[in-house]
């Protein structure tokens, strides 16, 4: 393969100590998406094959490289469109290749800027 590689188990700073590289590997995000549900446009992503628009406020990001199990972590964020609106995220239907995202902002809402990051072990 044409990619360069550096293999190391530890990174060590001259004075600040060392870090096991497994923390870097295991702590890196595995998937991300930045989606405008109002226009069904994926604005930025990584390790996403598609997003299934399910209904108002609800969608499924689908992974290209699935996770090894359903025991992964999702960090969700969205930009509320009304001042002082209450934004709530629900995660449903967790599978190794997808999960359901549900945005609630004074009712189910298609948000212009909704995003998520996923951490865990890859298949």
């Amino acid at each position, binding site marked *: 393969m044409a990619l360069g590689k550096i293999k190391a188990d530890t990174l060590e700073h001259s004075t600040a100590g060392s870090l096991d590289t497994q923390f870097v590997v295991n702590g890196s995000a595995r998937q991300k998406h930045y989606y405008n549900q109002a226009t*069904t446009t994926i604005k930025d*992503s990584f390790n996403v094959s598609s997003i299934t628009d399910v209904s108002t406020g609800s969608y499924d990001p689908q992974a290209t490289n699935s996770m090894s199990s359903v025991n992964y972590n999702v960090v969700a964020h969205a930009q509320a469109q009304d001042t002082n609106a209450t934004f709530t995220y629900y995660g449903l239907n967790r599978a190794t290749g997808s999960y359901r995202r549900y945005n609630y902002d004074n009712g189910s809402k298609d948000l212009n800027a909704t995003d998520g990051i996923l951490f865990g072990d*890859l298949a």
Partner: protein
Amino acid sequence: MNTPQFQGTHLFDRLCWAKENLDGVQSDYRVVYEDNIDECAKILVPDPNWMACALQGGILPPVQVYWELAKDEAQPDFVKHTRGHLLHNTKPVEAMTEEQAIEYLIMKDCPQHVWRNWDEGNKPKMVICRKEQLPGTREWRNAWKITEELSVTDLAA
């Protein structure tokens, strides 16, 4: 740009290479499907980075690999994938056209019971369309259905 020889390389590493070297491709295609008569139609939106990988070739595994993983996950005693190596070690698929990529995506991300018999029944359960053919406003999004007047015969013509 030529794709490196990726068979045996972790799929995630291939996606890293693609993100760095390929420009995203925004597809105008959308796949509308109904997998439950009590729910509104779902819309599959292709990812631009994934589409770039599909058009480039040599990056994505055959879609059958995802079916195998789905079979494993459907087992009642499933805990974690033990055949993830299929994603990384199976020979990647060659470059696809945009239309072939959409077909691949349907078979990967739509439920099999939808696309395997999409044209059986009183009306099609799935339609491939352009983004501009979707309703212009999402005000009634939860009521969207594939029209009863859509003819499978017309689609094939």
